[in-house]
């Protein structure tokens, strides 16, 4: 350092430094995929024992990022504790990372900083983004080593996490919509004690359920949520019931097909024409408080609603129109690419434990999420639980009839909110359905373009 740095040199240095940081930031998402997971490992028949590498016998510590808090968080911590005491090779630390959205955002940042967890919980609308970025690992080899039997998983749930025949996302905390009704009011009005079989039937019942004082409705027959509470998820079932859909699997948006328009028009009519439905930001509150006597809501809310409602709660399958339609939802587990093979195997051992038959039974009973294993449903412990909770049995019986959601909602970034805000315009602002769906289609197509490019690039690489 024999001469002083001039200001120009200093600035150039600064620029270069920030450039490097910028490049690292941009490239971060794609780099971890280079990690090779094909380290030869002796096949291991035991169900939960992690395949051991190196033979040192030391424990592997892994971290698990999840979004479960409160009662769910305690159940998840109990699951992790059970795993840690059941074997000596792996120690899992459960780290709560906020909502599904917070967790995904933090994972994005963590990928760029290369400070990733070993297991991550991703919701139905987030995992695909990380699959596209090649940030989550293919699981088939790992699952085979851990002795995971994919054939015992509920196919409708498992297949959602499969791309080109490869598993990336294992179902864990999965839920579906369910039709909830207020049994006391049903009896008072003299309706049969069941959910309506079709929307036509409900259209006949609804006027009897409504109460008015003057021009204002004091009790609605049905309540719709807003975009922020995932109306696009509930409407996914309805649009199928009417014979429509959001999109084809190839991302072609099909909102302007007659049946898709008919479904949205029906939603609008329930509020604006028939006048028996209301909308609210918190449908659980309206239902429990008696402002509305029926709704579609997640199976995940069943236990909480039954605990808080001052009346008998009834549930049933979603009503049909032309056909039956009900989507799956919730979150699943993935393993970030880029960790060492040893850690990935440890992560798989935990996933195998959490979604084992016994793990599923415990988790389902303490949280209300769908049992992801077929053997769990038939287990005597689960059957006994159904006897005590017939409503939960209904939720599980509906599961085989559900199907994976359309690409437009779950694979297009922000697709859920784009469709949800469109539905708000239709239901709340009474806007013309065709015009709104036209706007939504444009927005979805814009969102789909980069996804299609990424898919193309992935295919070219394969």
């Amino acid at each position: 350092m024999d001469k002083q740095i001039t200001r120009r040199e200093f600035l150039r240095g600064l620029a270069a430094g920030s450039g490097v940081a910028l490049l690292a930031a941009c490239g971060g998402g794609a780099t971890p995929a280079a990690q090779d997971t094909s380290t030869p490992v002796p096949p291991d028949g035991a169900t939960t024992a992690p395949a051991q590498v190196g033979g040192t016998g030391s424990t592997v510590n892994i971290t698990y990022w999840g979004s479960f808090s409160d009662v769910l968080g305690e159940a998840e911590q109990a699951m992790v504790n059970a795993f840690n005491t059941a074997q000596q090779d792996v120690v899992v630390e459960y780290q709560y990372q906020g909502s599904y959205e917070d967790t995904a955002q933090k994972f994005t940042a963590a990928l760029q900083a290369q400070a990733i967890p070993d297991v991550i919980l991703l919701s139905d609308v987030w995992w695909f983004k990380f699959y596209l970025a090649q940030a989550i690992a293919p699981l088939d080899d790992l699952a085979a080593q851990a002795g995971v039997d994919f054939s015992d998983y509920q196919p409708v749930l498992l297949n959602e996490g499969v791309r080109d025949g490869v598993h990336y996302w294992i179902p864990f905390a999965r839920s579906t919509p369910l039709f909830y009704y207020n049994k006391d009011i049903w009896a008072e009005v003299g309706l049969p004690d069941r959910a309506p079989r079709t929307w036509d039937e409900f259209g006949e019942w609804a006027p009897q359920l409504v109460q008015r004082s003057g021009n204002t409705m004091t009790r609605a027959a049905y309540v719709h949520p807003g975009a922020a509470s995932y109306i696009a998820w509930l409407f996914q079932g309805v649009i199928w019931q009417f014979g429509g859909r959001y999109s084809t699997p190839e991302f072609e948006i099909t909102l302007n097909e007659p049946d898709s328009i008919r479904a949205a028009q029906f939603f609008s009519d329930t509020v604006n024409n028939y006048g028996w439905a209301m909308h609210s930001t918190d449908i659980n509150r309206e239902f429990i408080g008696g402002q509305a006597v029926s709704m579609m809501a997640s199976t995940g809310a069943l236990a909480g609603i039954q605990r808080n409602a001052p009346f008998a709660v009834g549930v049933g399958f979603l009503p049909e129109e032309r056909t039956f339609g009900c989507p799956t939802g919730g979150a699943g587990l993935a393993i970030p690419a880029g960790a060492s093979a040893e850690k990935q195997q440890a992560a798989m051992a935990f996933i195998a434990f959490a979604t084992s038959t016994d793990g599923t039974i415990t988790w389902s009973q303490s949280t209300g999420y769908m049992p992801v294993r077929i053997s769990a449903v038939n287990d005597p412990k689960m059957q006994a639980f159904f006897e005590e909770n017939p409503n939960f049995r209904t939720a599980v019986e509906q599961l085989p009839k559900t199907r994976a959601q359309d690409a437009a909602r779950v694979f297009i970034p922000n697709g859920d909110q784009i469709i949800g805000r469109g539905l708000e315009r239709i239901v709340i602002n009474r806007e013309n359905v065709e015009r709104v769906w036209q706007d939504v289609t444009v927005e979805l197509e814009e969102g789909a373009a980069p996804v299609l490019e990424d898919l193309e690039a992935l295919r070219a690489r394969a």
Partner: protein
Amino acid sequence: MALTDDVVIVRPQTTMASWRRRSLLWQVAGYLAMAFVVLMIGMPVYWTVVASFKESREIYTIPPTWWPEAPTLANYMRAWNAAPFGRYYINSLITTTSSTAIKVVFAVFSAYALVFLRFPRKNLVFLFLLAALMVPREITIIPNYITVARLGWINTYQGIIIPGAAVAYGTFLLRQYFRTLPQEVLEAARVDGAGHVRILWSVVLPMSQPAVVTMTLLALVDKWNDFLWPLIITNTADMRVLPIGIFWLLDQEGVINWGVVMAGTLFVMLPMLLIFLWAQRYIVEGIASGAVKG
């Protein structure tokens, strides 16, 4: 000034009685407005407190009850036991006090320099500061995360504190206030041979007490309530702060137990409320001492 002149001109034209009537009317309107504002601000606080003593089922009943039917402390017990709030208090205390201290020191020194020192391109420096004020926090989160991760500060106190330590609004606030200080007092101090440190400590700071206290309070509340950054930069429960504790009480899917959430909210609110009550007299005192010049 023009306004008071108008009033003076208009006033003699009206009779005494009608003027008195009008002033009474204004007084009533004023009180009504005040009551309205108190209600607007007070209602949510009242609701938070009352709900924290209610059972979950009662919170969901409609019409709502104004007073808990069977007041219970169960929510407080559940909230306290659901998450390590004791640890969260310690962490919040450490991060909030140190971050606030750093912010105040930076703001005082930089504002003093910007007002009382002479150096070239002073306005340009100030402009840069203003520009920093305009950058939304959300944008800086990912770059900050990467920087902090490279420094190896994830899940540490310095990781929570340092990225937010130098903040432009404090400098901005104090600079504006320092500029209003009477030059004569400062010149007198200079004539008496006081250096910069002495002037800052014995003249500028005492006269600026309201501004400094206000800025400190803002910084305190800001850090105390900060949720997203501590959530992202920490991983383990023993490094988490109070607002994350409240979030833990909310259910991701299902029915939220609001009584417990409200009890947790009060854990977070109470210390700040007490500090505000205690600190506000220093704001008033400061305003009084600043008015000596008349």
